[in-house]
């Protein structure tokens, strides 16, 4: 299994988390061996995730408490008074505490990971995107050959949707 630059970029996060099948894992590893840009992105992603893992538990958003408090209030009504006042809700319900921390971390991590993947994607397609736009604009030059411009724009279309470039498409 071989990967192009764009596909490898999409799989990096899952690769880091050990969520890929064996064949995909091997393919990503092979690609990382060859591709300096992906290695750099992988390293960025690894450092980001490691940093996120060391963050102290964050305060959940207000909406979260609205959801948590209602069932807690119902339980409090049924529970003995000594339990109700001596232990905070999150200590009595560790699963809730873990969920809250995970929710906050996920909210913080998604834009960061998405930003890295977008940047990788932009790296992969940047040249093709700009050459494609240049080709369309060239079509307004009266003596340019349209069939040639169609060839260039068509090749770039494929790269923009994640398909590998035509043979000899890169130098």
């Amino acid at each position, binding site marked *: 299994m071989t990967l192009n630059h764009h596909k490898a970029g999409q799989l990096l996060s899952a690769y880091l988390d050990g969520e890929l099948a064996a064949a995909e894992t091997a393919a990503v590893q092979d690609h990382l061996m060859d591709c300096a840009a992906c290695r750099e992105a992988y390293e960025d992603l690894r450092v980001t995730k490691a940093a996120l893992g060391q963050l102290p538990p964050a305060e959940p958003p207000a909406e979260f408490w609205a959801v948590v408090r209602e069932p807690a209030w119902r339980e409090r009504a049924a529970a003995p008074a000594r339990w109700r006042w001596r232990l905070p809700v999150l200590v009595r319900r560790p699963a809730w505490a873990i969920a809250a921390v995970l929710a906050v971390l996920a909210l913080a991590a998604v834009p960061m990971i998405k930003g890295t993947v977008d940047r990788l994607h932009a790296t992969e397609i940047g040249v093709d995107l700009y050459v*494609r736009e240049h080709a369309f604009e060239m079509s307004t030059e009266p003596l340019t050959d*349209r069939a040639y411009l169609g060839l260039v*724009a*068509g090749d770039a279309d494929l790269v923009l949707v994640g398909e590998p470039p035509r043979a000899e498409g890169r*130098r």
Partner: protein
Amino acid sequence: MMLQPVRARARVWQALALAVGLVLLAAGVNLAAPLPPVSPERVLGMALEAPRLIDYEGTKVITVLRNGRMETVTVAESHKRPNMLRLEYLSPEDVAGRLIVDNGTSAWHYEPRVNMAFEEPTLQGALLSRDQTLLRRNYTLTALGTDEVIGRQAYVIALDPKGAGVHRQLWVDRATGTVLRSEERDPSRGVVLSTYFSRISFSLNQPEAFFQFRMPAGAHAVTLRTTEAESMSPADLERRVRFPVLIPPVLPEGYTFRGGAVSHFGSLTSVYLRYSDGGNLISFFEAPAGSIGWPAFGRPVRVEAQPGRFIDLGYFRVLIWEQRGLRVTAVGTTPTETLITVASQIAVGREQALVRAVSRRAEIDPGTVRRLRGEGLTFPEITRTLVLAQVLGTDLPTTVRFVKGTLTLRGLAQQMGVRPEVLRQTVRDATARASTLSPVTPAAVPAPSPGR
């Protein structure tokens, strides 16, 4: 007496044979006769007008420099006036079956190997008078005689840029004005693109439905319109995107601002500035440096000590560099040295110093110079505009239109009520004076050295 009818029949046959002989002789003389001399301007005019007047269907062979090798592509090309186009790529194998159907407003590209159809902008840009003006202003036209292409007589003309760029040669069909063959020659690498029709038929009654795209069964449709249609000045673009927009201070002779737009792809937002000399284009794309990484291919270069990457795609060249937190990408067919020199002029970042220099030399307030920069004019164009406005007594907007090619010399002469020949000489003198006032000149952009 019996011989009379026989003699009469024989005379009739002799007369017929003579007539046929004369017709054939006349046809032969006509074919062999040299074409009457036609000015290269007239031939160019025929070539520019032909798509609006002529329908054709033919097989075109394209040979193009692609990543260091010449690639040959064959395509069945159908054109219906004024601006409908259908392209069916036949070879090589990796493009065989690709179809582009363009109705003059938008185009569809169908790719059989992935069963996907892409909706995108038209490839049939309208012929604008500005392009014709710039083309005639910035290229030297030469008649190279006549030639025969697939049995048809053609006028051959050469278009050589006055600045740096590719040289074109066109074989223009005598009867229809259609370009039957073309060659683009890069001074450093020889022929980079050549096209010719191996077969062509004219005046066919091609149905319009042939130029309307029909989605193949099960095809996945994708809309790829990445550039906004609205054309904006650099000043407007800067207000829109909220990052600084860099305007080239100087470009090769003849290139002028054609338009600007915002380009979007995913989360990547770029500013797109295009400069044209009527025959070629240089595009500049600017995006925040953090939003796009370096490509994994290309040759590392330095642009005014800034890291850059040069990518030679063959016909197109791409130069990428970073400055002031922006990633700038220039795309064009101009020689490598020219592209790097233009990039260096941007990267050196002397904008305010140049504004002050022009303001001082042309004795005009810096605000006016900045405003003209915001309209995309280079510094040599600004000095030319200011000197011309002063000498001719025209207002700045009219003078800018003239400098950018949207107003012809004839049109300006008409507005001013002077003879075009008189105005031409005045403009020539004023342009020469302006070039001495400009702090940077197109001459600073070197012509390619022979052998490079």
